[in-house]
């Protein structure tokens, strides 16, 4: 017997488990659901959804608790300085969990209606949420990348999860190919920045560039190229023109609840990541990327709005409108970039966060209605599907109207508050041009909301309308829509407290 094998002890970073609790809860929930559902006979109706909603709710609660902790102790970083525990991160985490909460309820009846059994979709929701939260809280490029991959992979699968609709699978594979493509670019960007800065950790990166007295361009060509590629990855995720092409197809093809999830959670996480990367990791380079963000914002606003005009499928319309919304948020990001980082403060950041939360709730509600109207087969999402909704389901139609008006940014709805915040931020930093463009493109976008409202309320019924399967509004879906409408109106009337909260 030779010398006894001795493993030398490894000094891991100290881990603040409570700070990670939201992540753990979601993970745990996912595991329980996955394993539990696998081992036990199929759960009764609605249980999967309710379970997921409860998990999300629990996560929200924990995040709120953490919020207060941050209020007291101030922001910190976790697990060896790779995760942030700050209000921005928590805000987006909350947004994401709210998204999961609502999306789960929207999904419930849908799955039964479409005969797509099984809890996997919910598992993916929760896991994707983990990825999103990590993205938005990351303080390290590689962690951020992993979060991004978790979210993306989950989304690819979800998009393709409607086994009976070939469109669903097509959208899944499209999303996958383009997603992989762009994340490869992102990764390359990470590599180049790593090469230029000597680390992937935001804190270290900032430190490195603080050290270099004056930014010598020749030295930092690598970093610049890296930033470009990082931007590509992020722009793809937020579906900014011209990296938006995937989104209309995927939104249309994916099962409607999943579309809702993408539009809310996906966007929130992606913009969180964008704020982190641009403002927190690369504040020194704001002069370099701000013009790009400006341009992206403009073409995204206009492009999204204009292209929506000619669409006839509501899911597709909403896809383009969500592109246009992304443009609005980019305006906020641009404004935030004026303040510079690495601390995430200023009207720009808060306007972006406000917009994200409001829009997430809004868009899930909207797609919730589309889910109901899609009817069995999830195919009746054309404008025709909405014809006469005002007569058959006046309440539902009214809710949809409120949500659409909010998306159009009509006052007394949350949508207006969101736009107002972003425009204020933009005007604050004197970028009037982009503000005007944003508002005008909002008008163009309004046209498509009007078209939906027209077919709901005004359009004359046509032959065979009565033969159509009636639109059902099951309980959970109804609750979800109701919640989002209520939120929309409440925030529209009394936004003060929310604005106060926004960091």
């Amino acid at each position, binding site marked *: 017997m030779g010398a006894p094998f001795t493993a030398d002890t490894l000094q891991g970073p100290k881990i603040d488990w409570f700070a990670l609790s939201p992540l753990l809860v979601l993970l745990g929930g996912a595991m329980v659901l996955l394993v539990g559902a696998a081992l036990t006979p199929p759960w009764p109706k609605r249980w999967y959804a309710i379970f997921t909603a409860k998990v999300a709710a629990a996560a929200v609660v924990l995040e709120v608790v953490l919020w207060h902790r941050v209020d007291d102790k101030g922001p910190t970083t976790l697990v060896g300085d790779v995760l942030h525990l700050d209000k921005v991160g928590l805000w987006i985490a909350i947004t994401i969990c709210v998204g999961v909460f609502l999306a789960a309820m929207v999904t419930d009846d849908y799955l039964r209606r479409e005969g797509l059994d099984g809890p996997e979709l919910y598992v993916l929701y929760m896991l994707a949420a983990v990825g999103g939260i990590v993205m938005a809280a990351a303080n390290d490029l590689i962690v951020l990348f992993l979060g991004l991959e978790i979210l993306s992979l989950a989304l690819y699968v979800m998009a393709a999860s409607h086994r009976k609709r070939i469109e669903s699978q097509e959208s899944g594979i499209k999303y996958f190919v383009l997603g992989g493509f762009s994340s490869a670019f992102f990764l390359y960007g990470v590599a180049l920045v790593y090469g230029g800065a000597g680390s992937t950790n935001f804190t270290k990166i900032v430190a490195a560039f603080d050290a270099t007295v004056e930014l010598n361009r020749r030295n930092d060509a690598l970093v610049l190229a890296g930033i470009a590629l990082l931007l590509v990855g992020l722009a793809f995720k937020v579906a900014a023109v011209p990296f938006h092409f995937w989104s209309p197809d995927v939104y249309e093809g994916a099962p409607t609840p999943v579309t809702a999830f993408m539009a809310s959670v996906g966007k929130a996480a992606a913009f969180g990541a964008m704020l982190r990367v641009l403002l927190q990791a690369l504040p020194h380079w704001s002069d370099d990327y701000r013009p790009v963000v400006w341009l992206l914002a403009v073409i995204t606003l206009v492009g999204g709005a204009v292209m929506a005009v000619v669409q006839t499928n509501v899911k597709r319309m909403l896809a383009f409108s969500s592109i246009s919304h992304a443009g609005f948020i980019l305006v906020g990001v641009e404004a935030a970039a004026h303040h510079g980082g690495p601390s995430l403060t200023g009207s720009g950041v808060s306007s972006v966060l406000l917009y994200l939360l409001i829009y997430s709730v809004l868009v899930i509600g909207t797609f919730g209605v589309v889910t109901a109207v899609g009817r069995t087969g999830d195919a009746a999402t054309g404008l025709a599907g909405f014809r006469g909704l005002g007569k058959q389901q006046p309440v539902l139609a009214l809710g949809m109207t409120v949500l659409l*008006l909010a998306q159009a940014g*009509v*006052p*007394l709805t949350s949508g*207006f508050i969101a736009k*107002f915040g972003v*425009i*204020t931020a933009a*005007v*604050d930093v004197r970028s*009037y041009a982009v*503000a*005007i463009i944003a*508002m*005008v493109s*909002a*008008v163009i976008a*309004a*046209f498509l909301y*009007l078209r939906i409202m*027209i077919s709901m*309320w*005004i359009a004359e019924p046509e032959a065979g309308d009565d033969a159509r399967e009636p639109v059902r509004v099951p309980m959970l879906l109804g609750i979800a829509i109701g919640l989002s409408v209520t939120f929309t109106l409440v925030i529209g009337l009394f*936004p*003060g407290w929310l*604005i*106060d909260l926004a960091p």
Partner: protein
Amino acid sequence: MIEFPILTLLVLVPAVGALLVAVISKRQPDLVKVTALLTSVLTGGMSLWVLFAFKSHNPDFQFVSQHTWIKPWGISWHLGVDGISLFLVVLTGVLFPLVIAGVDPHHDHKRYLSWMLLLEAGVMGSFISLDLFLFFVFFEIVLVPMYFLIGGWGYDNRVYAATKFFLFTMVGSAFMLVGIIATAVLAKADDGRVTFDLIKIAENATFAASTGRWLFFAFAIAFAVKVPLFPLHTWLPDAHTQAPTGGSVILAAVLLKMGTYGLLRFGVYLFPEAAVWARPLFLTLAVIGVLWGAVAATMQTDLKRLVAYSSVAHLGFIVLGTFALTTTAITGSVLQNISHGLSTGALFLLVGMIYERRHTREISKLKGLQKVAPVFAAAFMVVMLSSIGLPGLNGFVGEFMILIGSFATARWWVVVAASGVILAAVYLLWAYQRVFHGEPDEDNKAFPELRWKEASLLLPFLALIVFTGVFPKPMLNRIEPSVNKLLDHVEQNSDWQQPEPLEPVISEEGEG
């Protein structure tokens, strides 16, 4: 001290009414109607109370109520009435019950009424809000009910008209929103923290000339669309023609006034320097509008469209008066807001009644109605003459004040605009002749005479038309002080001086 929040109620009561109507079950149509009517009547009553409690010869805002609304953005629920807005509020308050009681939408009463009440709340709000943000909220929210009224209860081409109306106006508001925010943000520099309070900004903030002009235009575009000022007027004929009678009445009587009112309250008051600077442009557009509208009206074949174009002409006069920047002219404009509301509103009612009877608005299809319905014709005649601006009726007073008041500061524009008076006679008399004179043909023989319900609906209009024409003094007493205050503000904040009122020179030797 806590005084009765009358203005807040002016907004809330109809809003609540709208909700009530919306929640009441479809199966009780009568209950729906009663609720709607009661709330609107209540609102009207309150507006009248405001009118009587209003202290005349007092230039300041009255019944002011101010509460913080969105603290972080310095936005407050700030309402107040002064001479400029007073009568618009009253007009709104009085008009809605009449329309709700008198005009039948024929289907979906529940939705119709609830939109109507929401509309009333919005209009009221935009006339009494003294906070830029608040004003914008109301200004914008008005679009929604109007959109649905046109789209839901309008005629053949309603979707196009409604959409056009919505988007056209929204483009204007888009600029105004940015303007509002920019104003507040820039004003912050002068007054510690950001505020959207109209008075605070107007009194404290000072903008660089160029900035002020940009901001002014951001506002002016929105209002120019709303007025509508040539060449941004083309949404109006479509909207009017397609809107249901009730909608047209409201649209003409109060909605358009949000534009002229806005120009005065938020254009001239906030940016005097810019307003003075932009005078020539607006005067010119206004005058073009007067002639253009009149000429276009002359050749219309659709009675409603004709009236719509006449609105373009009339509002041209109002804008002319606004930018003449003299006490007389602006007071005239404010008065003309009301007069036009009355006469054009009544005209639309009458046209609506004709449509109810004949299911056409084509002038060529109508003939000799005066013979079969003399009373109806008489009513139409009176309203028409007031619209033509016959002295002794309301239309004349405002128009004359505008013209004579503007003559000193905008002579050549007046010289041209006055010829609009001739054209007014042309298009209305011609239309009247074609519709009412001659021997009625087969289709028109059975044209029913004015009914009591309709008569009682028209009576208030006629009464006000005559009263305002004969004895406008009480109105002027309430309007003028505020106008003077406004003009003082303008003169202090710009190089503008309105010509001194001449002292009549009595030369000794009577003949030269």
